[in-house]
């Protein structure tokens, strides 16, 4: 399952698994954020290409309005996926533990 909500200091916290069945939930939430947004991924266990599409769509929208999406607390599996996808070139990514 997936949970996404506002955390402390304006950070958006996403936890669980961002698979194809959970993308509508994540997209609906991220469609409402504005400016430069930090997405805390330390509780995000898994992402598929459908989830990458949600992040890409959000990044495009925010960049067009001079904002951006920053990804922090990214675990090793997700780091690999972001690297293979070339997302390390279009997102600011801060690794987790």
């Amino acid at each position, binding site marked *: 399952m997936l949970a996404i909500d506002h955390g402390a200091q304006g950070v958006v916290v996403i936890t669980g698994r961002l698979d*194809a069945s959970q993308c509508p939930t994540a997209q609906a939430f991220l469609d409402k954020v504005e400016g430069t947004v930090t997405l805390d991924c330390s509780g995000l266990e898994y992402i598929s290409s*459908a989830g990458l599409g949600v992040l890409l769509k959000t990044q495009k929208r925010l960049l067009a309005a001079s904002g951006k999406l920053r990804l922090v607390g990214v675990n090793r*599996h997700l780091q690999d996926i972001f*690297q*293979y996808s070339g997302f390390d*070139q279009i997102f600011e990514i801060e690794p987790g533990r």
Partner: protein
Amino acid sequence: MNASRRFGRSFEAIARIFEFTSEFFARAGTDPRLLPPVDLVVEELFTNMVKYGAAADPDAEVRIDMASVPGGVEVSLTDSGVEPFDVTQAPDADTSLPIEGRRPGGLGLHLIRRLVDSWGYEYSKERRESRITFRKTLAAEPARENKSATGGA
């Protein structure tokens, strides 16, 4: 060890598929580090079948077979009532494009190619059945310090 289960062609089945793969890993004693990439490949292949196969026969189910192999697992997804389409030959996404040119499409196949040891496609004309089989073992996991040489192509 072998296991097999059938799933309706719907995104709602994804959670049950992950339960199946997780149960198999636990029972077979497969290295848990392989579970996230195996789940990802299974999801990408399954969602392709949901998107492109439902028009052919919406009632048909997708069968997933899992088998232990030395150092890992072999997984097959079998879709029936469909026309042949060799997904292993489908074009790759260009992940070197700047964000303006990036589209999510094709990214799933791009990831599969980087995550599996091998994969193959078979089609049975008599049964109108497509089967995709992939293998994932720890032996083919690139060393972390060498990742920059393998990713992002």
